[in-house]
């Protein structure tokens, strides 16, 4: 295995996490990761070793995700039903479902901004680069997205997710 392959492999857990939060679906997420890795391997010559490989991989994933969303109709529900029966669902599972449902209702670009910055802890510069937008646009998507997410989590008659004091 080459050094670059090792660098890419190190990012797979984070790519899976981002894809899962982005798509709201485990299977779709792993398909997206697989496509991303295949694309990365085929385009390795385009990666500049001086640049961090993380934003590069996330950029590939973001573009593949957008392509898939454009192909499938916008009416496709992003979030599926929870697989486990309610009785067996731990607290964390219920929280996850609430978050998935709310995230699924956000605009794609807002959801991506929130996840890259808030979950992946990417710098604003890197997140803007991944999304191919100026940093000012990223900040306003972040702001609007977070506001919208708050409304979605608070509203729609569902119990508020539990807070840690």
């Amino acid at each position, binding site marked *: 295995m080459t050094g670059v392959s090792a660098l890419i492999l190190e990012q797979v857990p984070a790519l899976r996490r981002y894809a899962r939060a982005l798509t709201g679906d485990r299977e779709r997420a792993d398909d997206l990761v697989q496509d991303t890795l295949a694309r990365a391997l085929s385009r390795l010559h385009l990666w500049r070793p001086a640049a961090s490989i993380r934003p590069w991989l996330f950029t590939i994933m973001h573009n593949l995700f957008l392509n898939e969303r454009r192909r499938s109709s916008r009416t496709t529900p992003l979030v599926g039903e929870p697989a486990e029966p309610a009785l067996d669902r731990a607290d964390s599972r219920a929280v996850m479902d609430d978050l998935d449902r709310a995230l699924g209702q956000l605009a794609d670009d807002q959801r991506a901004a929130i996840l890259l910055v808030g979950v992946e802890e990417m710098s604003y510069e890197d997140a803007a680069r991944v999304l191919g937008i100026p940093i000012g646009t990223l900040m306003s998507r972040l702001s609007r997205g*977070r506001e919208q997410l708050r409304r979605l989590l608070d509203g729609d008659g569902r119990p508020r997710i539990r807070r840690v004091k």
Partner: protein
Amino acid sequence: MSGGPVGDNDLQAYIDGRLAPARAAAVEAWLAERPEEAQRVAALRQDREALKAAFGPIAAEPVPARLVAEFGRRPPQPWRRSAAAALIFAVGAAAGITGGYLLQPPPAPERRDVVRDAIGAHRVFVPEVRHPVEVAAAEEAHLVQWLSKRLGHPLKAPDLTANGFRLVGGRLLSEGSRPAALFMYENNYGHRITIHCIPEPGGAATAFQYRELDGVNAFYWIDDKLAYAVIGTVQREKLLEVAKVVYAALELK
């Protein structure tokens, strides 16, 4: 106030914890005068934490083989000691740690990689819904007595309620041919961390050390013939806070 009026970008950076201390203080002062805005920002911060807590553990899951098939075998050591050492410093600096015990280099490699084994045990037991522990927190005294007896060393289950974690219980583990102890804690999101106590008969006391393995964070140290590891997928800084509480609690035994 330093740095001019507070704008939305300041608030976002404040939510992300990315403001310089002076600017963060200015934002806090600004929020203190605007209770409604402060409440809104606090809620946004909590949402950010909730997302992290919910999706963080996915990075700790084993990667399905089909995803990495094209890469051949996974590297036996995905983390590098030099990188881990650099991270200890980065973490210490990021968390504003002043304690000297954190900023020492890691010791020579151990014969057995007990931290890797502990992370493995964390992975195995943390997803358990029905049987995460052998003895539940309701029988804490019995649990601690039992594990102390098996390890031949007085143990305790530190109180982590100030960090938002309550004891779930514990179990006996096998590390090499020796018994080891695991205490599991959980927060209101169902997010779990584990504390491992592993006999280290010849082990000299070491500094806090940090390791990340496939998205699982671990702080570990050796003290008084036991190796301790605090393991979880929570934010590194949060785990460090927990590790410091554990360290302090065990010092006072």
